[in-house]
Protein backbone atom coordinates (compact mmCIF):
# COMPACT_ATOMS: atom_id res chain seq x y z
CA UNK A 1 0.00 0.00 0.00
CA UNK A 2 1.26 3.49 -0.88
CA UNK A 3 1.93 5.83 1.99
CA UNK A 4 -0.70 8.53 2.57
CA UNK A 5 0.42 12.05 1.72
CA UNK A 6 0.35 14.67 4.43
CA UNK A 7 -1.06 18.16 3.97
CA UNK A 8 -0.70 21.18 6.24
CA UNK A 9 -3.65 22.20 8.42
CA UNK A 10 -5.85 24.62 6.45
CA UNK A 11 -6.48 28.09 7.87
CA UNK A 12 -9.92 29.65 8.52
CA UNK A 13 -9.25 32.63 6.29
CA UNK A 14 -6.94 35.17 4.76
CA UNK A 15 -7.10 38.94 4.54
CA UNK A 16 -5.43 41.95 3.00
CA UNK A 17 -3.04 43.36 5.60
CA UNK A 18 -1.84 46.46 3.76
CA UNK A 19 -1.80 48.25 0.41
CA UNK A 20 0.79 50.30 -1.46
CA UNK A 21 0.57 52.43 -4.59
CA UNK A 22 2.94 53.96 -7.07
CA UNK A 23 1.85 56.63 -9.54
CA UNK A 24 4.48 57.87 -12.01
CA UNK A 25 5.35 61.58 -11.85
CA UNK A 26 4.52 62.52 -15.42
CA UNK A 27 0.95 63.77 -15.91
CA UNK A 28 -0.46 63.51 -19.41
CA UNK A 29 -3.47 65.79 -19.98
CA UNK A 30 -6.35 65.20 -22.39
CA UNK A 31 -5.11 68.07 -24.52
CA UNK A 32 -1.80 66.23 -24.98
CA UNK A 33 -3.44 63.03 -26.26
CA UNK A 34 -6.31 64.68 -28.17
CA UNK A 35 -4.28 66.02 -31.12
CA UNK A 36 -3.27 62.80 -32.91
CA UNK A 37 -6.84 61.41 -32.64
CA UNK A 38 -8.46 64.67 -33.76
CA UNK A 39 -10.38 64.86 -30.50
CA UNK A 40 -10.79 67.22 -27.54
CA UNK A 41 -10.66 67.37 -23.76
CA UNK A 42 -14.46 67.55 -23.68
CA UNK A 43 -14.93 64.50 -25.93
CA UNK A 44 -12.49 62.41 -23.87
CA UNK A 45 -14.16 63.37 -20.57
CA UNK A 46 -17.59 62.60 -21.95
CA UNK A 47 -16.44 59.30 -23.46
CA UNK A 48 -14.43 57.98 -20.53
CA UNK A 49 -14.55 60.26 -17.49
CA UNK A 50 -10.77 60.62 -17.76
CA UNK A 51 -9.28 64.04 -16.98
CA UNK A 52 -5.63 63.03 -17.03
CA UNK A 53 -3.46 59.93 -16.76
CA UNK A 54 0.08 59.19 -15.51
CA UNK A 55 2.80 57.87 -17.79
CA UNK A 56 6.04 56.34 -16.62
CA UNK A 57 9.37 57.85 -17.66
CA UNK A 58 11.03 56.23 -20.67
CA UNK A 59 13.67 54.57 -18.51
CA UNK A 60 11.22 53.55 -15.77
CA UNK A 61 10.44 49.82 -15.96
CA UNK A 62 7.51 47.66 -14.91
CA UNK A 63 9.77 46.19 -12.21
CA UNK A 64 10.72 49.68 -10.92
CA UNK A 65 7.07 50.59 -10.45
CA UNK A 66 6.24 47.20 -8.90
CA UNK A 67 9.08 47.59 -6.39
CA UNK A 68 7.96 51.11 -5.46
CA UNK A 69 4.37 50.04 -4.74
CA UNK A 70 5.37 46.82 -2.99
CA UNK A 71 7.86 48.53 -0.64
CA UNK A 72 5.04 50.74 0.65
CA UNK A 73 2.73 47.74 1.16
CA UNK A 74 5.43 45.82 3.03
CA UNK A 75 6.31 48.81 5.23
CA UNK A 76 2.65 49.41 6.02
CA UNK A 77 2.02 45.72 6.83
CA UNK A 78 4.80 45.56 9.40
CA UNK A 79 5.99 42.13 8.23
CA UNK A 80 9.59 41.40 7.31
CA UNK A 81 10.31 40.84 3.59
CA UNK A 82 11.77 37.43 4.51
CA UNK A 83 8.31 36.34 5.72
CA UNK A 84 6.84 36.59 2.23
CA UNK A 85 6.35 33.11 0.77
CA UNK A 86 5.08 34.08 -2.67
CA UNK A 87 5.31 37.05 -5.01
CA UNK A 88 2.62 37.23 -7.71
CA UNK A 89 2.99 39.96 -10.30
CA UNK A 90 0.00 40.58 -12.57
CA UNK A 91 1.09 42.37 -15.73
CA UNK A 92 0.87 42.17 -19.51
CA UNK A 93 3.21 45.03 -20.36
CA UNK A 94 6.72 44.12 -19.29
CA UNK A 95 8.71 44.60 -22.48
CA UNK A 96 11.36 42.16 -21.28
CA UNK A 97 9.68 38.87 -22.10
CA UNK A 98 11.78 36.83 -19.70
CA UNK A 99 12.58 36.23 -16.92
CA UNK A 100 9.59 37.08 -14.73
CA UNK A 101 9.16 40.48 -13.10
CA UNK A 102 8.33 38.72 -9.82
CA UNK A 103 11.78 37.17 -9.31
CA UNK A 104 13.53 40.51 -9.77
CA UNK A 105 11.05 42.31 -7.53
CA UNK A 106 11.48 39.72 -4.76
CA UNK A 107 15.26 40.03 -4.94
CA UNK A 108 15.22 43.82 -4.78
CA UNK A 109 12.80 43.79 -1.84
CA UNK A 110 14.77 41.19 0.13
CA UNK A 111 11.97 38.64 -0.10
CA UNK A 112 14.54 35.88 -0.33
CA UNK A 113 12.23 33.07 0.81
CA UNK A 114 9.54 33.76 -1.78
CA UNK A 115 8.42 31.67 -4.73
CA UNK A 116 7.85 33.98 -7.68
CA UNK A 117 5.70 34.07 -10.78
CA UNK A 118 3.97 36.53 -13.10
CA UNK A 119 0.41 36.09 -14.25
CA UNK A 120 -1.23 37.29 -17.44
CA UNK A 121 -4.90 38.04 -16.93
CA UNK A 122 -4.83 41.61 -18.26
CA UNK A 123 -7.26 43.93 -16.45
CA UNK A 124 -8.46 41.02 -14.28
CA UNK A 125 -4.87 40.19 -13.26
CA UNK A 126 -4.92 41.69 -9.79
CA UNK A 127 -8.21 40.01 -8.81
CA UNK A 128 -6.87 36.71 -10.17
CA UNK A 129 -3.77 37.19 -8.03
CA UNK A 130 -5.86 37.98 -4.98
CA UNK A 131 -7.96 34.84 -5.51
CA UNK A 132 -4.81 32.74 -5.80
CA UNK A 133 -3.23 34.40 -2.76
CA UNK A 134 -6.34 33.69 -0.69
CA UNK A 135 -6.21 30.00 -1.69
CA UNK A 136 -2.47 29.76 -0.99
CA UNK A 137 -2.83 31.24 2.49
CA UNK A 138 -5.95 29.26 3.44
CA UNK A 139 -4.40 25.97 2.33
CA UNK A 140 -1.22 26.95 4.21
CA UNK A 141 0.80 26.68 1.00
CA UNK A 142 1.98 30.20 1.81
CA UNK A 143 1.95 32.43 4.86
CA UNK A 144 2.29 35.92 3.38
CA UNK A 145 1.71 36.62 -0.30
CA UNK A 146 2.69 39.83 -2.07
CA UNK A 147 0.26 40.53 -4.92
CA UNK A 148 1.20 43.29 -7.34
CA UNK A 149 -0.73 44.69 -10.31
CA UNK A 150 1.54 46.77 -12.53
CA UNK A 151 1.43 48.07 -16.09
CA UNK A 152 3.38 50.29 -18.41
CA UNK A 153 0.67 50.53 -21.04
CA UNK A 154 2.20 53.67 -22.54
CA UNK A 155 4.71 51.38 -24.31
CA UNK A 156 1.83 49.66 -26.14
CA UNK A 157 -0.48 52.56 -27.02
CA UNK A 158 -0.88 53.81 -30.56
CA UNK A 159 -1.26 57.60 -30.27
CA UNK A 160 -3.47 57.62 -33.38
CA UNK A 161 -5.92 54.86 -32.33
CA UNK A 162 -9.17 56.70 -31.48
CA UNK A 163 -10.43 53.74 -29.47
CA UNK A 164 -7.53 53.49 -27.04
CA UNK A 165 -5.08 56.42 -27.25
CA UNK A 166 -6.77 58.40 -24.46
CA UNK A 167 -7.63 55.52 -22.15
CA UNK A 168 -4.48 53.95 -20.84
CA UNK A 169 -2.09 54.96 -18.06
CA UNK A 170 0.83 53.49 -16.11
CA UNK A 171 1.22 52.61 -12.44
CA UNK A 172 1.45 49.90 -9.80
CA UNK A 173 -0.58 48.77 -6.81
CA UNK A 174 0.33 46.10 -4.27
CA UNK A 175 -1.17 44.28 -1.32
CA UNK A 176 0.11 41.87 1.32
CA UNK A 177 -2.24 38.95 1.96
CA UNK A 178 -1.77 36.97 5.17
CA UNK A 179 -3.51 34.57 7.58
CA UNK A 180 -6.71 35.60 9.36
CA UNK A 181 -8.87 33.97 12.05
CA UNK A 182 -11.93 34.56 9.83
CA UNK A 183 -12.47 34.95 6.06
CA UNK A 184 -11.27 38.42 5.03
CA UNK A 185 -11.37 37.53 1.34
CA UNK A 186 -14.57 35.96 0.06
CA UNK A 187 -14.82 33.29 -2.63
CA UNK A 188 -13.41 34.42 -5.99
CA UNK A 189 -15.80 34.15 -8.93
CA UNK A 190 -13.66 33.86 -12.02
CA UNK A 191 -13.87 32.71 -15.58
CA UNK A 192 -13.12 33.40 -19.20
CA UNK A 193 -14.81 33.79 -22.58
CA UNK A 194 -12.11 32.99 -25.10
CA UNK A 195 -14.62 33.25 -27.96
CA UNK A 196 -14.09 37.02 -27.56
CA UNK A 197 -10.33 36.63 -27.89
CA UNK A 198 -10.25 39.42 -30.49
CA UNK A 199 -12.17 42.00 -28.44
CA UNK A 200 -9.01 43.40 -26.80
CA UNK A 201 -5.69 42.28 -28.21
CA UNK A 202 -2.27 43.19 -29.52
CA UNK A 203 -2.36 44.29 -33.15
CA UNK A 204 0.23 41.69 -34.18
CA UNK A 205 2.89 39.37 -32.86
CA UNK A 206 6.53 40.42 -32.47
CA UNK A 207 7.36 37.75 -35.06
CA UNK A 208 5.11 39.48 -37.63
CA UNK A 209 6.91 42.70 -36.93
CA UNK A 210 10.34 41.07 -37.09
CA UNK A 211 9.55 39.49 -40.45
CA UNK A 212 7.90 42.59 -42.00
CA UNK A 213 9.56 45.59 -40.36
CA UNK A 214 9.02 47.79 -43.41
CA UNK A 215 5.25 47.23 -43.64
CA UNK A 216 4.23 46.95 -40.00
CA UNK A 217 4.55 48.76 -36.69
CA UNK A 218 5.43 47.18 -33.33
CA UNK A 219 2.40 45.67 -31.58
CA UNK A 220 0.00 48.01 -29.79
CA UNK A 221 -3.30 47.38 -28.00
CA UNK A 222 -6.53 47.46 -29.97
CA UNK A 223 -10.06 47.17 -28.62
CA UNK A 224 -13.60 46.69 -29.93
CA UNK A 225 -15.12 49.27 -27.61
CA UNK A 226 -18.80 48.53 -28.13
CA UNK A 227 -18.42 44.76 -27.73
CA UNK A 228 -16.37 45.20 -24.55
CA UNK A 229 -18.81 47.76 -23.16
CA UNK A 230 -21.73 45.40 -23.77
CA UNK A 231 -19.95 42.47 -22.15
CA UNK A 232 -18.82 44.56 -19.19
CA UNK A 233 -22.16 46.09 -18.25
CA UNK A 234 -24.17 42.96 -19.03
CA UNK A 235 -22.12 39.95 -17.95
CA UNK A 236 -19.92 41.61 -15.31
CA UNK A 237 -22.91 42.85 -13.34
CA UNK A 238 -23.99 39.21 -13.06
CA UNK A 239 -20.50 38.24 -11.86
CA UNK A 240 -20.73 40.95 -9.18
CA UNK A 241 -24.00 39.45 -7.94
CA UNK A 242 -22.40 35.98 -7.88
CA UNK A 243 -19.46 37.25 -5.81
CA UNK A 244 -21.82 38.89 -3.30
CA UNK A 245 -23.97 35.77 -3.08
CA UNK A 246 -20.96 33.47 -2.69
CA UNK A 247 -19.71 35.65 0.19
CA UNK A 248 -23.15 35.54 1.79
CA UNK A 249 -23.77 39.29 1.71
CA UNK A 250 -25.87 41.82 -0.22
CA UNK A 251 -25.13 45.27 -1.64
CA UNK A 252 -26.45 46.74 1.63
CA UNK A 253 -23.48 45.23 3.50
CA UNK A 254 -20.91 46.89 1.22
CA UNK A 255 -18.86 49.90 2.23
CA UNK A 256 -17.18 50.25 -1.16
CA UNK A 257 -17.38 49.12 -4.79
CA UNK A 258 -13.95 49.00 -6.44
CA UNK A 259 -14.33 47.87 -10.05
CA UNK A 260 -11.55 47.76 -12.63
CA UNK A 261 -11.18 51.36 -13.78
CA UNK A 262 -11.95 50.59 -17.42
CA UNK A 263 -14.10 53.58 -18.28
CA UNK A 264 -16.27 55.81 -16.07
CA UNK A 265 -19.25 55.00 -18.30
CA UNK A 266 -18.84 51.29 -17.50
CA UNK A 267 -18.59 52.04 -13.77
CA UNK A 268 -21.71 54.25 -13.92
CA UNK A 269 -23.68 51.59 -15.80
CA UNK A 270 -22.60 48.87 -13.33
CA UNK A 271 -23.53 51.05 -10.34
CA UNK A 272 -27.02 51.57 -11.84
CA UNK A 273 -27.45 47.89 -12.67
CA UNK A 274 -26.29 46.75 -9.22
CA UNK A 275 -28.65 49.27 -7.55
CA UNK A 276 -25.94 50.18 -5.05
CA UNK A 277 -27.25 52.04 -2.00
CA UNK A 278 -26.13 55.66 -1.48
CA UNK A 279 -23.73 54.79 1.36
CA UNK A 280 -21.52 52.62 -0.87
CA UNK A 281 -18.36 54.50 -1.86
CA UNK A 282 -17.62 53.94 -5.57
CA UNK A 283 -13.97 54.05 -6.68
CA UNK A 284 -13.53 56.55 -9.50
CA UNK A 285 -9.74 56.64 -9.60
CA UNK A 286 -9.84 56.56 -13.43
CA UNK A 287 -10.45 60.32 -13.47
CA UNK A 288 -6.82 61.16 -12.69
CA UNK A 289 -5.14 57.80 -13.35
CA UNK A 290 -6.65 56.50 -16.58
CA UNK A 291 -7.14 52.78 -17.16
CA UNK A 292 -4.07 51.02 -15.77
CA UNK A 293 -5.23 47.45 -16.47
CA UNK A 294 -3.90 45.09 -13.75
CA UNK A 295 -2.86 48.05 -11.58
CA UNK A 296 -6.27 49.72 -11.56
CA UNK A 297 -8.02 47.82 -8.75
CA UNK A 298 -5.17 48.06 -6.19
CA UNK A 299 -4.54 51.72 -7.12
CA UNK A 300 -8.24 52.48 -6.74
CA UNK A 301 -8.36 50.58 -3.43
CA UNK A 302 -5.42 52.57 -2.14
CA UNK A 303 -7.15 55.81 -3.19
CA UNK A 304 -10.42 54.82 -1.49
CA UNK A 305 -8.54 54.05 1.75
CA UNK A 306 -6.52 57.29 1.53
CA UNK A 307 -9.74 59.30 1.08
CA UNK A 308 -10.79 58.31 4.60
CA UNK A 309 -14.34 57.71 3.36
CA UNK A 310 -14.27 54.00 4.21
CA UNK A 311 -13.29 52.59 7.59
CA UNK A 312 -10.84 49.75 8.05
CA UNK A 313 -12.74 46.45 8.15
CA UNK A 314 -15.40 47.72 5.71
CA UNK A 315 -16.41 45.31 2.96
CA UNK A 316 -15.50 46.09 -0.64
CA UNK A 317 -16.61 44.35 -3.81
CA UNK A 318 -13.71 44.07 -6.27
CA UNK A 319 -14.03 43.07 -9.92
CA UNK A 320 -11.44 42.89 -12.66
CA UNK A 321 -12.31 42.19 -16.32
CA UNK A 322 -10.52 42.53 -19.61
CA UNK A 323 -8.58 41.01 -22.47
CA UNK A 324 -9.13 37.27 -22.88
CA UNK A 325 -11.88 37.97 -22.21
CA UNK A 326 -11.33 37.07 -18.54
CA UNK A 327 -12.80 38.18 -15.23
CA UNK A 328 -12.48 37.73 -11.47
CA UNK A 329 -14.45 39.21 -8.57
CA UNK A 330 -14.46 38.87 -4.81
CA UNK A 331 -15.62 40.63 -1.66
CA UNK A 332 -12.80 41.67 0.68
CA UNK A 333 -12.47 43.19 4.11
CA UNK A 334 -10.48 46.41 3.66
CA UNK A 335 -7.27 46.70 5.71
Amino acid at each position, binding site marked *: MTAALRLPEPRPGSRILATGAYRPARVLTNDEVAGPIDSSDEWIR*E*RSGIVERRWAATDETVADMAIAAASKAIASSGIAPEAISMVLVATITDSLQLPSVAALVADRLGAKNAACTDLAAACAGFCYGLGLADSLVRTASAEYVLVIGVEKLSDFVSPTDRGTAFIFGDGAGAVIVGPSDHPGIGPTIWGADGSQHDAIKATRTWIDFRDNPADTAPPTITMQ*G*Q*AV*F*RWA*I*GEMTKVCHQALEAAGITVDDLAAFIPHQA*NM*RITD*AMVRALKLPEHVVVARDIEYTGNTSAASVPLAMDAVLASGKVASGGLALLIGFGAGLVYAAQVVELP
Partner: protein
Amino acid sequence: MSQTLEGLAAIVNEVAGTPIADITAEKSFVDDLDIDSLSMVEVVMACEDKFGVSIPDGEVKNLRTVGDAVAFIDSAMSA
Protein backbone atom coordinates in the same frame (compact mmCIF):
# COMPACT_ATOMS: atom_id res chain seq x y z
CA MET B 1 -47.29 56.33 -31.45
CA SER B 2 -46.76 52.57 -31.83
CA GLN B 3 -46.13 50.54 -28.70
CA THR B 4 -42.60 49.79 -29.87
CA LEU B 5 -41.84 53.46 -30.45
CA GLU B 6 -43.32 54.30 -27.06
CA GLY B 7 -41.15 51.68 -25.34
CA LEU B 8 -38.03 52.74 -27.22
CA ALA B 9 -38.67 56.40 -26.39
CA ALA B 10 -38.87 55.56 -22.70
CA ILE B 11 -35.49 53.78 -22.97
CA VAL B 12 -33.81 56.64 -24.83
CA ASN B 13 -35.22 59.05 -22.27
CA GLU B 14 -33.75 56.97 -19.44
CA VAL B 15 -30.33 56.54 -21.05
CA ALA B 16 -29.80 60.05 -22.48
CA GLY B 17 -32.41 62.19 -20.74
CA THR B 18 -33.95 63.23 -24.10
CA PRO B 19 -37.56 64.50 -23.70
CA ILE B 20 -39.99 61.79 -24.87
CA ALA B 21 -41.77 64.21 -27.22
CA ASP B 22 -38.54 64.74 -29.18
CA ILE B 23 -38.10 61.04 -29.89
CA THR B 24 -39.76 60.48 -33.25
CA ALA B 25 -39.20 57.97 -36.04
CA GLU B 26 -37.12 60.17 -38.33
CA LYS B 27 -34.64 61.24 -35.62
CA SER B 28 -31.05 60.03 -35.88
CA PHE B 29 -29.69 58.56 -32.63
CA VAL B 30 -26.27 60.13 -33.09
CA ASP B 31 -27.07 63.43 -34.80
CA ASP B 32 -30.38 64.39 -33.16
CA LEU B 33 -30.64 62.55 -29.85
CA ASP B 34 -27.11 62.80 -28.46
CA ILE B 35 -26.75 58.99 -28.29
CA ASP B 36 -23.07 58.11 -28.79
CA SER B 37 -21.84 54.59 -29.54
CA LEU B 38 -21.61 53.58 -25.87
CA SER B 39 -25.08 54.95 -25.04
CA MET B 40 -26.35 53.07 -28.11
CA VAL B 41 -25.10 49.84 -26.54
CA GLU B 42 -27.15 50.64 -23.43
CA VAL B 43 -30.22 51.41 -25.56
CA VAL B 44 -29.79 48.14 -27.46
CA MET B 45 -29.39 46.08 -24.28
CA ALA B 46 -32.45 47.69 -22.72
CA CYS B 47 -34.44 46.98 -25.92
CA GLU B 48 -33.38 43.33 -25.81
CA ASP B 49 -34.70 43.08 -22.25
CA LYS B 50 -37.89 45.02 -22.87
CA PHE B 51 -38.92 43.47 -26.20
CA GLY B 52 -37.38 40.01 -25.79
CA VAL B 53 -35.43 40.26 -29.05
CA SER B 54 -31.76 39.81 -29.91
CA ILE B 55 -29.91 42.70 -31.57
CA PRO B 56 -26.41 41.49 -32.54
CA ASP B 57 -23.41 43.86 -32.47
CA GLY B 58 -23.21 43.68 -36.28
CA GLU B 59 -26.79 44.95 -36.62
CA VAL B 60 -26.37 47.99 -34.37
CA LYS B 61 -24.61 50.11 -36.99
CA ASN B 62 -27.63 49.73 -39.32
CA LEU B 63 -29.95 51.28 -36.74
CA ARG B 64 -29.34 54.90 -37.66
CA THR B 65 -32.73 56.37 -36.84
CA VAL B 66 -35.41 55.65 -34.26
CA GLY B 67 -37.55 54.34 -37.13
CA ASP B 68 -34.82 51.87 -38.15
CA ALA B 69 -34.76 50.50 -34.61
CA VAL B 70 -38.57 50.26 -34.38
CA ALA B 71 -38.70 48.42 -37.71
CA PHE B 72 -35.97 46.00 -36.65
CA ILE B 73 -37.61 45.29 -33.29
CA ASP B 74 -41.09 44.83 -34.83
CA SER B 75 -39.75 42.43 -37.43
CA ALA B 76 -37.72 40.50 -34.83
CA MET B 77 -40.77 40.25 -32.54
CA SER B 78 -42.98 38.88 -35.30
CA ALA B 79 -40.31 36.44 -36.54
